[in-house]
């Protein structure tokens, strides 16, 4: 079974701007998922989607956090399966190459896979911040 998911994307923004977006709780909570997060090694973070059904919190520990590499463990609550998420940024002079790696996926097997599937089917897709909605509200607020 495939064990690692990798994504690469070039963003038209400075490396520090991207770094802040992926490492600061306030920014993560805006575009990703409600985050209690600190980019400090050993910090036990929590990603939650409060008020949304079927969204199990994600818990983990920061393993590495120095510009521009961020690594943390990723455990969907009650699954007892620990995977690892790594973000790496590369300065392209005004632009930034973002490299994302999520490893340990094959550990989701048997009963865990069933649970995960059920949870995800129950609306996990909606757990990520609905950014479009957020931006729309921002515009209305102005």
């Amino acid at each position, binding site marked *: 079974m495939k064990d690692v998911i990798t994504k690469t994307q070039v963003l038209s923004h400075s490396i520090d701007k991207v770094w802040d977006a992926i490492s600061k709780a306030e920014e993560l909570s805006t575009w990703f998922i409600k985050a209690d997060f600190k980019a400090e090694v050993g910090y036990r973070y929590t990603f939650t989607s409060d008020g949304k059904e079927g969204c199990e919190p994600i818990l983990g520990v920061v393993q590495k956090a120095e510009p521009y590499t961020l690594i943390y463990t990723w455990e969907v609550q009650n699954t007892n399966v620990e995977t690892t998420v790594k973000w790496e940024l590369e300065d392209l002079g005004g632009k930034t190459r973002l490299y994302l790696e999520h490893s340990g996926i094959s550990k989701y097997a048997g009963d865990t896979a*069933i649970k995960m599937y059920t949870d995800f089917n129950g609306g996990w897709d909606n757990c990520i911040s609905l950014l479009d909605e957020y931006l729309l509200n921002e515009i209305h607020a102005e």
Partner: protein
Amino acid sequence: MQSKITKILKAIADPTRREIFHALVVAATAMPITQISGQFAISRQGITKHLKTLEDAGLIQIQTKGRERFCLADPLPLQEVNHWLKFYERFWDDTLQNLSSYLDNKA
């Protein structure tokens, strides 16, 4: 009631069942249960139980011809599992798209 995907995941969660299923896929033809149990060091009763689980998941078809029962593999339902495994692919695609829009719209 168990969903289809749950049955499939349960069926393939067991290593012996995966081996039985694999043997049937490789055979690419209907195999008599007697012949299947001859390939595994477990009781015929045990094999029958595993085959029933595989049948419930839609991964094999069991047909009776005369005194013998024949099993035929059907790997098509596995596509559902593959679909599920793509969950994180989609998840991260969506996430990175969100990040990109967020940065684009940030003052």
